[in-house]
């Protein structure tokens, strides 16, 4: 009897360790948040990578990810404005929500919320989200204020 209980205890302990490790995968790993403290001026027609990437770790069954880009003002020099989107896991630059940077100068902080679903190419384990974009019609460039990029698993 005691031997059986001991076996159950060991089995339960192993199960708890697995669950514990799975839970710790949700802890905030480095790379979910990025800060660009300086102004930048990506130049080119949409769409190209801005080379700024955040990442999240998905469980075995991926959940939706919410990526938020907060920028301290911007200005597009392109007629028709510029677009900003995301490259998910090295795929094409795609617009996952609002994307427009108008031709007028915006001096106040703005944010964009993008929602990426598992069907958009998320997978178990590490997933990367790289800022991308460019001029809607032209390649005159844009001026971006300091910005942050953050990714989180939906609740």
């Amino acid at each position, binding site marked *: *009897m*005691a031997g059986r*209980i*001991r076996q*159950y*205890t060991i089995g*339960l*302990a192993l*199960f*708890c360790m697995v*669950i*514990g490790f*799975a*839970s710790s995968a*949700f802890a905030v790993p480095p790379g979910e948040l990025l800060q660009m403290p300086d102004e930048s001026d990506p130049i080119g027609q949409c769409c190209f990578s801005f080379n700024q990437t955040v990442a999240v770790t998905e*469980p075995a069954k991926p*959940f*939706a990810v*919410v990526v*938020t880009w907060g920028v301290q003002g911007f200005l597009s020099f392109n*007629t*028709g*404005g510029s677009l900003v989107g995301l490259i998910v896991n090295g795929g094409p630059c795609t*617009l*996952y*929500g*609002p*994307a*427009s*940077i*108008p*031709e*007028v100068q915006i001096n106040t902080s*703005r*944010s*964009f*919320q*993008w*929602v990426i*679903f598992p069907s958009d190419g998320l997978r178990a384990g590490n997933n990367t989200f790289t800022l991308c974009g460019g001029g*809607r019609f032209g390649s005159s460039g844009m001026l971006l204020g300091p910005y942050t990029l953050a990714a989180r*698993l*939906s*609740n």
Partner: protein
Amino acid sequence: MNIGSGRMKRLLFAMGAACVVMVMGTAAFAVPPTEALRIETNQTFTGLCCFSLGETVSITEPKKLVPVVVTFSTDYRSSSDSLVELSVNDHPCMKLQGMQAAAPADGSFASATFEWTIFPGDGLTPGNNKIVLCGGLDTTGASLTLGFRTLAVRISK
């Protein structure tokens, strides 16, 4: 032997309880698809505020209610100032925020993001809660076109 066996049983029970807590903690991260939505078609509205704009998200509240944070992010064109609000569990629209008129001559869109904190006193209930985006124009004859947009709700932490 009996004492040792009893101790083992208590240990087993405690570990089982700990496992249940951990499993429930992990499950709390599960994302029903309705907590976030993305719309990739333009839609034009012409009515005065406020009516449902169609976007709905939902979230499950625990027995002890906690606030939720709702974020709406959109591209838009508007010939007059517009308003956006939220309706919680079919209550009247509330928590009004303004959206400045923006109609670039080149046909491009402006963008805006709005965030609301919904408190238990705003009509949240244990279990499933439905949150609907509503709004409209503040000038007769004007129009508001929403472009690519997202709506997401999350439990505040």
